[in-house]
């Protein structure tokens, strides 16, 4: 499931912020904000995407870099919020 979630998150970032350029895909641990992949509006879009696409609730206290800062942290966060064995979408 981790791989599927990581792939879907990466696709969202590539299509929305990298103009579909897969050659610029961030590494798993790259900081999406600090390294300029997404901007402040992108963070809002990303959180709304987690909720609409994966069906996970993101509380205010969870909107921190530890959960949202990289593809690796996003994958870990989404995985932790999904029931075990349930498809992501």
């Amino acid at each position, binding site marked *: 499931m981790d791989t599927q979630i990581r792939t879907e998150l990466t696709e969202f970032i590539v299509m929305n912020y990298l103009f579909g350029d897969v050659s610029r895909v961030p590494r798993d641990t790259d900081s999406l904000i600090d390294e300029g992949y997404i901007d*402040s*509006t992108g*963070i*809002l*879009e990303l*959180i*709304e995407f987690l*909720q*609409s696409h994966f069906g996970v609730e993101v509380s*205010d*206290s*969870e*909107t*921190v*870099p530890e959960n949202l800062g990289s593809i690796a942290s996003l994958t870990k966060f989404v995985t932790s919020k999904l029931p075990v064995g349930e498809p992501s979408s």
Partner: protein
Amino acid sequence: MTGGVGTDIVEVRRITALMRDRGAAFLERWFTAGEIEYCSRKAMPPQHFAARCAAKEAVLKALPVAWNGPLPWRSIEIVNDPHGAPSVRLSGAILDAATRAGVNEISVSLSHCIEYATAVAVVDVTSDQANG
């Protein structure tokens, strides 16, 4: 004494899309009830919500605070006087952090057109904090 300046720009179409796709859930997560009421009665609400997004980010950039906590967007409220002039009202943890940093006053200016909304924030801090 001026302590910091922040600016931000937001594409209105992206806020329009979030409002279309996520509706009230999007607005209520990121904006206060007062902001929602103010923007919703405008002819083109997405431009006004986008301007507030820009203003919140501009304020966060201007504050002399290394903020690593949850996104404090509802705790950085943009309020308008009867003539429409905007000002900033902080609350919660971001208010505590700003107070500890010596922030006296925050000035903000917003602007928008069909495509973009932008804002500039200027923070005034006590001279003791600014020097130290």
